[in-house]
């Protein structure tokens, strides 16, 4: 006997991805008690031992009915919205979230199946955004600020998308936490990025810049910024959010500055390597192929191309015993060597 008698069990207007695909779990969530025991528990012993909460089977159908009724009201409100109003899409998304936010199946998926959510559904994007804001976003901002990536590269950032980064240095795939110190062996090949949008997105264009703001500038006794990698006009959507080798192989025009791994010179300290993700208004015009890497003016570039920074990532690298090999691999001359100690006085 299903507790659902209204919208939450009808999939004419709602997406079927809002329902749990596992039948046993679905029946468990749609019946007052647990007809075939606790499905989510794995071992037989714990299944046998498990006792449900007393009285839950009586109150749960009532609660479900109350919430489903409210959801029905919200859906009818969506139908009555003015479709010509400029804020229609926004209002609709907000109401769609409100209508599905408390659906037990949705809650279950948002809590326990975070990796396989259908990102075209506003409610799942809402839950994903909440989890992102709860940890990853704060962590990223903390790393960007303490490592002074802002304001050294761009003035500031208000993150709108989640950016995940990984390097294909070995046979395993692992997302890298912002601020990690990586060896030159890890960064020798171009990375893959995942850009997760929390708004509805169908084919927006994105630009990615990878810059090293810690390249020594001996003439000024200071540092300059080097552009290591530039990718433009990458089309991403809620369903397809990866910028990886596969995508770049298919659209070769995307890569306007070829990948150059960060090869630090001896005794230049830890280099911060910043990845900036921008949303584009239209196709990028002021980004010619083979743009000059050295003394790259990232602020000027962003202004010229009217880019909006929406996300960032940062890693750090250092000179190590493998750096010279990577230099050879890319046909670069041998790196310079600097004094180990910094001088305590101004040079000029």
């Amino acid at each position, binding site marked *: 006997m299903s507790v659902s008698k209204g919208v939450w069990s009808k999939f004419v207007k709602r997406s079927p991805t809002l329902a749990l695909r596992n039948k046993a779990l679905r029946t468990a969530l749609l019946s007052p008690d647990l007809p075939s025991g606790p499905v989510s528990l794995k071992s037989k012993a714990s299944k046998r031992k498990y006792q449900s909460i007393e009285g839950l089977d009586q109150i749960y159908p009532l609660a479900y009915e109350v919430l489903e009724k409210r959801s029905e009201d919200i859906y009818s409100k969506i139908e009555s919205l003015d479709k010509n109003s400029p804020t229609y899409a926004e209002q609709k998304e907000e109401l769609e979230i409100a209508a599905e936010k408390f659906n037990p199946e949705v809650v279950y998926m948002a809590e326990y199946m975070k990796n396989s959510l259908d990102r075209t559904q506003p409610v799942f994007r809402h839950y994903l955004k909440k989890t992102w804001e709860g940890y990853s976003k704060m962590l990223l901002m903390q790393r960007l600020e303490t490592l002074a990536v802002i*304001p050294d590269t761009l*003035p500031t950032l208000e993150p709108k998308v989640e950016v995940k980064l990984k390097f294909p240095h070995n046979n395993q795939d692992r997302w890298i936490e912002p601020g990690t110190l990586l060896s030159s062996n890890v960064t020798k090949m171009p990375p893959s990025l995942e850009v997760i949008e929390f708004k509805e997105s169908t084919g927006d264009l994105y630009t990615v810049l990878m810059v090293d703001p810690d390249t020594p500038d001996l003439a000024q006794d200071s540092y300059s910024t080097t552009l290591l990698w530039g990718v433009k006009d990458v089309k991403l959507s809620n369903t397809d959010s990866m910028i990886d080798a596969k995508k770049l192989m298919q659209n070769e025009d995307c890569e306007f500055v070829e990948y150059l791994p960060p090869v630090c010179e001896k005794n230049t300290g830890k280099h911060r390597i910043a990845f900036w993700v921008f949303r584009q208004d239209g196709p990028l015009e002021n980004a010619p192929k083979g743009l000059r890497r050295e003394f790259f003016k990232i602020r000027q570039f962003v202004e010229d191309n009217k880019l909006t920074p929406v996300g960032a990532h940062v890693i750090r690298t250092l000179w190590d015993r493998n750096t010279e090999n990577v230099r050879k691999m890319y046909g670069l001359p041998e790196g*310079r060597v*600097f*004094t180990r100690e910094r001088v305590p*006085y101004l040079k000029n």
Partner: protein
Amino acid sequence: MFSSRIVSLVCNRVKTSLSVGHQSIFQVRTATKRAGGSRTHMKDSAGRRLGPKKHEGESVEVGEIIMRQRGTKWYPGENAGIGKDHTIFALEPGFVRYYLDPFHPKRKFIGVVLREGDKLPYPHFDPRKRRFGRFLIKKPEAAEAELEFQSRKESQTLPELLKGAEERQQKREARLFELKEQLSQFIELESEELKNLAAGRLLQIDRFLRGGKSQEDARFHTTYNHLYDLKLQLRRNEISQEQHDNLSSQYKSLAESVDSNIMFDAFFDLCAYKTPETIKSNQEAAIAELDKLVIPNQPRTKELKEQVFAILKSQDNCFTLSQQLALKRKYLKPVLPEVDGLVLDKPDKKAVAITKINYDTRRIETVYRPKEAFLP
């Protein structure tokens, strides 16, 4: 009664320890000397030489003291540090600035700027002004020596790391050799060079598969890596554009022929390539055979067990490890369910006693199972 006994015991113990520990309270000491006077002067100390040591605009080097103070009357600003007695000192060479920062309206700051004309505070969203402060080592011998320099930690760990790398390399080479030997069973390649290429490709795919990638992804990334290497060779001017195109098309065709002839099974051994449709139909046939072979709730023989394992591990069926496990759990249960004929009423010489908790009666029950109930 029981608890009163415990309490009295504790009290006794506490009393004992008190009486032993504080015998001295019974001793009395009387005053024999007059208490000190009440004069209040003679408390003055010498001046602590506080105050600014460098003034606005004066040049400083790293570590020079700018201000001595009690408490944080002044805070360290740009390029300045603070000591444990709140002494403010320079962290960079430059020129001293005394300034206020609207971010902290109640504080006064001392900072150091790198250029004489600069003002503090710097605009908040501008890039920081930083000093590199190192010299280029121009002498080749000195540069070489600096490159050779190893920190204590590095010199301790490096041999071990190199040894590990060496071992991994050896393993890889052994595997490469093995794959090259097996290769000829599945595919005919003319030259030694192509064989090496194909074996290298299989080795890469093998590594990706072990890392958890799907077969398709593993193949794609192997091709991509090889083409990327060719592109780098072109960049280094080791090959011409024409050679590059030739080599990449040659590799692509090789990859296609290797992929259409060879694949890996669940145990990362080579086997002949089968299309997904063939695999699916083979698996269905295998499951039908298993259904026929294994009769539910009947004692199993050793031969039956081996037959089932052979079907599960057969390279024709290409069951993945998780599929194999699931099927093993289904068809070769370690203990059969408690049905008639597989439970004994009384303990037997050969019977196995199994104790378990009955959660309804909250009692421990013993069930006697014959040898046939278990997997041989």
